[in-house]
C-alpha cells in the first residue's frame, strides 16, 4: 500500500474529531528527533467528502505542538471505519501492551462506529492473542469499581478480578483498600478465597469483611484465610508441625508428610558427617518410631 505524504498544519490536525485519540503510551517523543523530522507521518482517514480524521498520531501531534513545530507530515487513506481502526492499531503496534484506559478507548471507538463484527479480527492487534476484546471489556465494566481501579493500575489481572464481579461491593472495597499490602500472586490467592467464602460458601458480607480484617492482622493474609477456608487440613498441618517440633527439632532429621496428607507413607531426610551425628539422627528416628501412631492418624 503506498500513501502520498503531504505537510499539514499541526493546529489544523489538532482540530480533527477525537474519536481515534486512543493511545497514551506515555513514552513521548525526543524533541531533537522531532526537529529532524525523524518520526512517522500522522495517519488520516477519509471516508467520503467529509474532512479527514486523524486516526493515528495524536500523541505525536501534542509533542509537535509542545516543541513549537507548526506542520506535520500526514498520509491519507480512504477506507471504512474498520479499516481506519485496523490501520491505527497496526501503526501503533503495541499488541498486548495497552493499558486499560487505552483498551476502553478502543472499545468505545468500536461501539461508536458499530464495528462489533470486526472486533474478533481486531482482538489480536489489541490483546496480543485471539479472543474477544469486547467480552474482555464487558467483563472489566462488570467489575465493582474498587476492582476496576486495581485492574486499571495493573495490580490485578482481569481473569482473577472477574471472580470479584460476584462479590458484594463492600467486600470488594475492603479487599481493594488492603490490596496494596499484598504481592501480585497474594492478591490472586486472597481474592480467590474471598470469592469462595462469598459466592460458594454464601457467607454474608460482614462476616467476610471481619475475616479479611483478621487475616490482615496476622501479617500473612493468604495463609490466614487459607486456614479459615480449610480448617481440617490446617489442623492436620498444625498437628504434623507440632509432632516435628516435639520430636525432631534440632536433630538434623527432616520429616515429610505426603502432599495434602494423601497417601500411605512419610519420608525422612538427613545427612551425617560423623558417627556421632549418625547416632544422633538414629536416636531421633527412634523417637519418631515410638510415637508414629500419632503420624499415621493424620492419613
Amino acid at each position, binding site marked *: 500500500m503506498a500513501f502520498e505524504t503531504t505537510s499539514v498544519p499541526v493546529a489544523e490536525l489538532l482540530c480533527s474529531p477525537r474519536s481515534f485519540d486512543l493511545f497514551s503510551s506515555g513514552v513521548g517523543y525526543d524533541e531533537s528527533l522531532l526537529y529532524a523530522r525523524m518520526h512517522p507521518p500522522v495517519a488520516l482517514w477519509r471516508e467520503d467528502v467529509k474532512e479527514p480524521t486523524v486516526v493515528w498520531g495524536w500523541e505525536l501531534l501534542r509533542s509537535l505542538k509542545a516543541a513549537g513545530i507548526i506542520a506535520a507530515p500526514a498520509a491519507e487513506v480512504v477506507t471504512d471505519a474498520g479499516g481506519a481502526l485496523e490501520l491505527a492499531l497496526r501503526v501503533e503496534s503495541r499488541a498486548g501492551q495497552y493499558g486499560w484506559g487505552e483498551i476502553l478507548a478502543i472499545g468505545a471507538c468500536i461501539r461508536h462506529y458499530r464495528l462489533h463484527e470486526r472486533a474478533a479480527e481486531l482482538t489480536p492487534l489489541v490483546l496480543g492473542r485471539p479472543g474477544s476484546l469486547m467480552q474482555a471489556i464487558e467483563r472489566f465494566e462488570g467489575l465493582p469499581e474498587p476492582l476496576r481501579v486495581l485492574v486499571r493500575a495493573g495490580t490485578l489481572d482481569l481473569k482473577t478480578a472477574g471472580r470479584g464481579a460476584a462479590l458484594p461491593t463492600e467486600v470488594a472495597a475492603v479487599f481493594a483498600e488492603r490490596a496494596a499490602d499484598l504481592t501480585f500472586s497474594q492478591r490472586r490467592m486472597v481474592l480467590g478465597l474471598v470469592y*469462595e467464602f462469598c*459466592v*460458594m*460458601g*454464601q457467607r454474608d458480607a460482614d462476616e467476610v469483611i471481619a475475616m479479611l480484617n483478621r487475616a490482615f492482622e496476622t501479617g500473612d493474609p493468604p495463609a490466614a484465610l487459607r486456614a479459615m*477456608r*480449610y*480448617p*481440617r*487440613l490446617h489442623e*492436620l498441618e498444625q498437628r504434623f508441625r507440632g509432632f516435628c517440633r516435639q520430636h525432631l527439632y534440632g536433630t538434623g532429621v527432616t520429616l515429610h508428610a505426603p*502432599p*495434602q*496428607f*494423601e*497417601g*500411605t507413607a512419610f519420608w525422612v531426610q538427613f545427612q551425617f558427617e560423623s558417627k556421632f551425628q549418625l547416632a544422633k539422627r538414629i536416636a531421633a528416628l527412634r523417637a519418631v518410631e515410638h510415637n508414629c501412631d500419632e503420624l499415621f*492418624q*493424620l*492419613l
Partner: protein
Amino acid sequence: MSCFSYYRRRFLHFYAEHEVAEHPAVRRAAQRLALRGAKLVTAREQIPKAHRNDRTLVAVPTRGSPVGRCPGSRGHICCNYLTADLYAGCTLGCSYCIMQSYRNFAPLVVNIDTYPIIAAVRAIARANPGRRVRVGTGQIGDSLQLDPLFGLSRELIEAFADEPSVELELKTKTDFVDHVLDVSNVGNAIIAFSLNPPELVAQEEPETAPVADRLAAAERVAAAGYRVAFHFDPIIRVGEWQAWYRALIERLRTMPPLRIAWVSLGMVRFTPALRDAVPPRRFMFDEFVPSRDGKLRYLQRERVEIYRFMRGTLEQALGRVPIYLCMESPAVWRHVFAGARSAPVGSLLAPLRLPQSGS
C-alpha cells in the same frame, strides 16, 4: 417418567448420518418420536448451529474402537471396567458431571450399530478365558435414558446371553427399564442404578428419575431375572448426609441380596476446570484438596471415614454384598477394607487383555 411423551417434549430435532439412515434403530426412534424420519446429514458437523444443543439427537455409525478401558485415574485403583459408548451425552443435568468441562459437541450422539461392540467383547472374552469381562455402556452417557427410543441395549443383552463370562452392565439414573423386561434370556446382564438420597437428587440431579422410581425399577428388573447393581457415586457430604444415606440404604433391604451383583462407592470429585465451568454449588465449598490425578477430593482421612460409614451401613442392611470403590487410592482401599465383611472383589480388579482390533 413416561418415556415417549418425555422424549417428544425433550428432543426437538433428530438427525442421522446417511450411512445409518436405514438402520432399523433409526427408523424405530423416528417412529417413536412421531417423526417421518430423521433429517439426514453427511457428517454431524452439517447440523445447523442453531440445532447443536442438547435438544438434538444424532445417530451415527459406530466408529473407532468400539470397546475401551475405563480411563481410570492416575494414582488410583481402577476396577478395569470396559466401556462401550452406545450413547454419548445425556440431559439429566447433574451439577457435578465431568462431561460439562470436556464435551465439545452438545447434541446427544447415538452410536447406532451394536455389531462392532458385540464382536469386540466376544474377542475379549475369548482372549481372557476363565475371567469375568465386565463391560458397561454408561460411561459417557446414561445407558437407558434414550434406550426405549433406540432399543440398542436389548441387542447387547441378547447377544451376550450365551457368553457366560460377559457381564454387561447398563447403568442409569432413570427408571426406563420396561422395554427390556421381556427379554427371555438375560444371561449375565446387570441393570445398575446410580443412587443418591432424594434430598441430594433434588439439588444436584434435577432431571433424573426420583429415587423411589429408580428403586421400583430395580425391583421390576430383579423380578424379570436380571441382577442389579447400585452405585453410590458421587457421595456428597452435605446437610444431614449420614441420616440421608442411611435412610436410602435401608430402602434397599427389599432387594434380594443374591440379586445384587455389586455396589460401588465413589466420593464426589471434580477437576478445577469443572469447578470453574459450572455455576457455584454449595457442596463445592467443602474442603477439597488435589489428589494425585489432579482432581479435587475430600481429605483422605475423611474419605476413609465416609466410606467406612457407607460400608458398615450397607453390610448391616444387605449382608455380604460385593462392594468396591471407584477411582480411589490404594491407601483408601486399605483403610476402608481392613477387616471388612464385604465380599472380596480382588479378582475383578486384575486387568483384562484387550486383543488388537481384527485379531
